[in-house]
């Protein structure tokens, strides 16, 4: 058994940068490289897209780029890969990865596809109520487009036990992607909540990539990191007792220090003594951190409590549309012109009988981000964007937003900055609700693909 397992991050979400993954593959000396490639609505959006466009393969749209970037380095070092790029088609993703492996001349590489998280057809039978508002999940029947259960580390570990070098899944809890290698290498039992608490806690520190190595962090003059344009993704050196060192490769910008680790530890955490995952309930309140040397933080004493009897389920539903656009004022009197423009827009929306659940007209540069919290004595900005958005039930109503912003050029007021709309100003809303399913109702399956 290894005494230390080196696990690197390769991606924190769907749109993450690719270069730092390649650096970790080439220079990280990694036993494992793990990708988290989703966002909240990734699965739902993929199912909607697949229905409209059957040619969409259903896996990570960046899969080719990400694999081309890391496979050479991983093959050279013997780094195993755990990735959730499978989205709604793990088998298809595995086949595509085998394609790239074959192009590189790799021999004897086993790629496992883990299925079982998609439960769209069964979700209403398996679930009871919506966690956010207590209503029955049955009320979502007419608008439901997708449902997925969050798998934990166990099916990933099983794939490794069956000889996988690369494991591709659909939705899995993000920390589990990083803990699975620890469970496998150290032989942790699925009910060992002390070890799994520590492992999931470390996974939580890793799952957001650069957010622990200096990303989502800098505040010039208050918190600075060297070369913030050159951030690496983190590496965790994990030990069998659940302790670890969090670090990054040298020759990169950013930093791993007590501040970056604390910020990430509490990120998206509510009660820090009860952070619920499919594998365990993590307790961060006992954690101890020690900066042992530059960019190395020792993390110990994250503990855990027994896992819950259920798995979380995300249910994606069609919930209407959002129409959005903006136009601009600058120089002396920018604010007074923006205020008149807003008045005109409000009247225009009445004339065209805009039927919207909510309309929001912000002054970007003044109050668009902090809304009603903006101090009343905030200084008048030199330039302002009037940014308008409306949530509607139909696409036809949402289109009116962009059309009335079009009208603010020729039929608006003086000195209005406008642009020709290059992008779609109307988008569909896929709303996501949460529920719970008994753990034993979800049975993952594993298919193997080989070079």
């Amino acid at each position, binding site marked *: 058994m290894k005494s230390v397992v080196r696990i690197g991050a390769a991606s924190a979400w769907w749109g993450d940068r690719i270069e730092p993954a390649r650096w970790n593959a080439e220079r990280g000396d990694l036993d494992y490289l793990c990708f988290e490639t989703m966002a909240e609505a990734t699965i739902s959006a993929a199912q909607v897209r697949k229905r409209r466009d059957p040619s969409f393969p259903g896996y990570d749209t960046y899969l080719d780029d990400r694999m081309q970037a890391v496979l050479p380095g991983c093959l050279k070092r013997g780094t195993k890969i755990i990735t959730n790029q499978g989205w709604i088609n793990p088998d298809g993703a595995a086949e595509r990865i085998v394609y790239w492996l074959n192009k590189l001349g790799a021999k004897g590489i086993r790629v496992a596809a883990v299925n079982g998280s998609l439960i769209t057809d069964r979700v209403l039978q398996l679930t009871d109520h919506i966690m956010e508002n207590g209503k029955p999940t049955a009320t979502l029947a007419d608008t439901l487009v997708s449902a997925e259960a969050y798998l934990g580390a166990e099916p990933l570990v099983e794939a490794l036990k069956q000889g996988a070098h690369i494991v591709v899944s659909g939705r899995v809890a993000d920390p589990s992607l990083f803990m699975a290698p620890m469970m496998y290498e150290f032989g942790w039992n699925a009910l060992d909540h002390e070890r799994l608490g520590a492992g999931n806690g470390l996974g939580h520190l890793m799952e957001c990539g650069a957010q622990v190595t200096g990303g989502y962090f800098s505040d010039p003059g208050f918190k600075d990191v060297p070369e913030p344009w050159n951030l690496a993704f983190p590496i965790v050196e994990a030990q069998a007792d659940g302790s670890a060192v969090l670090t990054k490769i040298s020759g990169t910008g950013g930093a791993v220090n007590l501040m970056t680790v604390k910020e990430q530890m509490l990120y*998206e*955490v509510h009660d*820090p003594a009860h952070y619920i995952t499919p594998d365990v309930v993590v307790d961060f309140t006992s954690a101890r951190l020690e900066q042992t040397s530059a960019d190395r933080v020792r993390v110990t004493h994250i503990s855990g409590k027994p896992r819950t009897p259920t798995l979380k389920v995300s249910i994606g539903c069609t919930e209407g549309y959002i129409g959005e656009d903006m136009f601009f004022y600058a120089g002396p009197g920018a604010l007074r012109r923006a205020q008149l423009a807003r008045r005109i827009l409000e009247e225009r929306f009445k004339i065209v009988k805009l039927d919207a659940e909510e309309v929001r007209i912000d002054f970007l540069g003044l109050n668009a*981000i902090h809304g*009603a919290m903006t101090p009343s004595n905030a200084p008048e900005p030199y330039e302002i964007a009037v940014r308008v958005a409306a949530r509607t039930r139909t696409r036809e109503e949402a289109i009116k937003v962009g059309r009335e912003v079009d009208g603010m050029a020729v039929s608006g007021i003086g000195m209005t900055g406008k642009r020709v709309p290059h992008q779609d100003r109307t988008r569909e809303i896929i709303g996501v609700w949460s529920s719970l399913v008994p753990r034993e109702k979800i049975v993952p399956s594993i298919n193997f693909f080989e070079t």
Partner: protein
Amino acid sequence: MKVLLQHLAHTRSGDKGNTSNIAVIAYAAELYPYLREQLTADKFKAHYAGVVTGKVTRYEIDGLQALNFVAEGALGGGVSRSLCLDNYGKALSARVLSFELDVPEALRPKLRGFG
């Protein structure tokens, strides 16, 4: 002396549904007791009035010199539905930087970006 929170602590916000959690972490252990005493859940909610529409719960992680504020009804109905440009609320943590605290003059050397 009166000092803005930005000189005592750093912050980060995260999202889950329509709830934002905002961590407030002391720059130095000596500063933590003043944050803990003065930045209560009620004071936090008042400072976020107009945006945080639901309950605010404060958790203390003394071993990390950190407070975690869980603010419900903060994200315009949820990330997928919100009309706010910052629909994830990633810039929400900056609002608490302007919260004013009272700290002893002797702690001036521990303050960041001050004077």
